[in-house]
């Protein structure tokens, strides 16, 4: 069966959604797009040859009766749109962050469960090949038990999105509790729940999301003020430590480092692994079995060989058209649609996404950015 998909919100990321859905062949097709500004819906439909475009969500839901609704609007509207889509009988995919806070996220998950529909979130890098390989390494015991993880994300404000939010004091990012961090922190945190084992591992979806994880967060503004309004107050550097009962993590977001870094490093009881999400590589570091100077000589060659091998793997992926920018998103869509077709569990456990929503609430509590857009 071909799933009928509607995309709500026709900003930048909607392009990626439509393109990746169109790559899935018969599994799904985009039947309509919606934006409260009809011109935006029209341009997306026109560029991708889509049959329907609307500026009224309820009208679209009534006419098109989509099987799945992708929500790519600003986060302030995710809960309301998600509820309406679920009530209309659609499964729902929400771009990150899920909602503005844990309470709203919990309400949305409860609504999905009550409606008997599936819900998932755009944790796209989680489905990129290197992170999938990292999970396989854990499963095979090659890393051992996780002891510590470091999750780094650089975010250049000179890019199109940075320019948009710095060019507009009323940009929706300035209305988020965590502002710039809020729109990006999921990418840092969703790699961690498996590395910070849950003290409620047996499916207690709505148990305390923080549990025994202790969180300490600091944030600051590194840019020079130049607007005299809410934009100058937007923090651009964040450091967070999360400490569990047997493992810990350090999360680091920066708008200033070059090159713009996106890595996850995991230290285990047997070896450590470094995932470079930009280069899509994963390399392992193990204790050298060689003695003295030889033990110091060999690791550089070992690392070089691993990078060479990873380069070859990526070249093969490129040759087989499997090296797209949104590879992870594409795989997540497939997994979500598959879970709908087979009535299996959604690709991202609800406990997982609710823990992250809870962690984010705590981080915003510790790093308040109270100046908001008008």
């Amino acid at each position, binding site marked *: 069966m071909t799933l009928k998909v509607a995309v709500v919100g*026709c*900003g*930048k990321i*909607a*392009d990626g959604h439509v*393109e990746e859905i169109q*790559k899935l062949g018969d599994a799904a097709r985009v039947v309509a797009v919606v934006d409260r*500004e009809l*011109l*935006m819906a029209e*341009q*997306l439909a*026109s*560029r991708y*040859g889509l049959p329907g475009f609307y500026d009224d969500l309820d009208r679209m839901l009534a006419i098109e009766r989509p099987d799945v609704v992708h929500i790519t609007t600003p986060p302030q509207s995710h809960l309301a749109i998600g509820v309406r889509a679920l009530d209309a009988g659609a499964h729902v995919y929400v771009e990150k962050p899920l909602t503005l806070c844990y309470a709203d996220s919990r309400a949305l998950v409860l609504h999905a469960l009550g409606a008997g529909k599936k819900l998932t979130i755009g944790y796209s890098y989680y489905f990129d090949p290197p992170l999938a390989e990292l999970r396989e390494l854990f499963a095979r015991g090659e890393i051992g038990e996780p002891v510590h993880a470091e999750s780094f994300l650089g975010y250049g404000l000179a890019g*199109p999105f940075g*320019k*948009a939010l*710095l*060019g*507009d*004091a*009323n940009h929706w990012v300035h209305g988020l509790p965590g502002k710039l961090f809020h729109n990006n922190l999921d990418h840092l945190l969703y790699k961690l729940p498996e590395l910070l084992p849950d003290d409620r591992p047996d499916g207690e979806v709505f148990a305390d999301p923080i549990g025994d994880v202790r969180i300490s967060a600091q944030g600051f503004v590194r840019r020079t003020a*130049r*607007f*005299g*309004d809410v*934009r100058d107050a937007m923090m651009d550097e964040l450091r967070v430590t999360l400490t569990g009962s047997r493992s810990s993590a350090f999360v680091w977001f920066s708008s200033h480092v070059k090159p713009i870094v996106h890595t996850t490093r995991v230290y285990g009881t047997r070896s450590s692994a470094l995932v470079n999400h930009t280069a899509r590589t994963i390399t392992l570091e193990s204790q050298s079995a060689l003695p003295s100077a030889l033990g110091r000589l060999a690791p550089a060659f070992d690392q070089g060989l691993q990078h060479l091998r990873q380069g070859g793997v990526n070249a093969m992926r*490129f040759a087989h*058209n499997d*090296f*797209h920018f949104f590879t992870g998103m594409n795989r997540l869509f497939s997994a979500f649609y598959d879970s709908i077709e087979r009535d299996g569990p959604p690709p991202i456990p609800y406990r997982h996404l609710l823990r992250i929503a809870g962690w984010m609430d705590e981080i915003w509590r510790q790093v308040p950015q109270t100046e908001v857009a008008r």
Partner: protein
Amino acid sequence: MKVLVTGATGFLGAALVCRLLARGETDVRCLVRTGSDRSKLEAIAREATGSTVELFVGSIDSSASAARAIEGVDVVYHLAASLAGAPADMFLNVVVASKHLLDAIVAAARPIKVVLVSSFGVYGTADLAAGAVVDESTPLEPHPERRDIYSQAKLRQERLFREVQAKHGFPLVVLRPGVIYGRGGSRLSARVGLDLAGVFLSLGGSNLLPLTYVESCADAIVIAGQSPVAVGQTYNVVDDDLVTADEYLARYRRDVQRLTVVPVPYPALRAVSAAVQAYSRWSKGQLPAVFTPYKTRTMWKGTRFSNAKLKGLGWRPLVPTTEGLGRAFAFHKAAIGA
């Protein structure tokens, strides 16, 4: 009479403000966004004796803010647009922002004249014969989806203005400039070629460039904006004595900087475009279709350009192309050396 200039802090916008003053306007409101560089406009305002140049901090991000910007205004010169960025941003900044402006104009208590600065990019030239003349009667692009995002956005913007004008009847003048160049402008238009990792692919060859020197272009906009006979009309803006892409590039290399140039003849470019498009389709967009046969025919097939209609209004280029290139290249050389 009060005139409003949107996009006033831009390359063309600042030149337009100067020409408005030179042609007798005495009350010019410049719409500037918070945080934008206003130094050029502040300098113009300081030197504008006997005239008012108001720097109005605002935007057309909403109909309400656009309404504030046009309060008391008789003529709007609408230049504000994005030249690059993600497709959604481009439509938002070019088309949706225009809609906000139009909402405000339609809701205004008195008629407001609109001078829209569109683009040569709206013409559908892919299927014209080589050597055909592009003038105001040339059909608009029939396949926007095959074109670059900027052209798509400008096409939709112009159509939006015409739709609203037809419904509400305000005075509208449309200008379609070619490649605007000058001090502070871009150095090498895509019509000349493309820099690829330090090697410049010369794509334009013997194609004429539809150049218009920034001050001459600004002057054309003002003349059309002030002319009663221009209402309801559309004008192309290109200068006289146009040069070919090869001539432009040769002089650029002589006067500005040395470049490693690889000439790509038109037949080879068409073959490469077909290959790039085929690969992009086959790989489902793993590499974007930067070149396609359609875009190549549009840009480099070898069209010529007419400014006869604009000259009918009495416009003449303020600066001959040879001199304009000299000024622009001197600026670029100094900027590179700085």
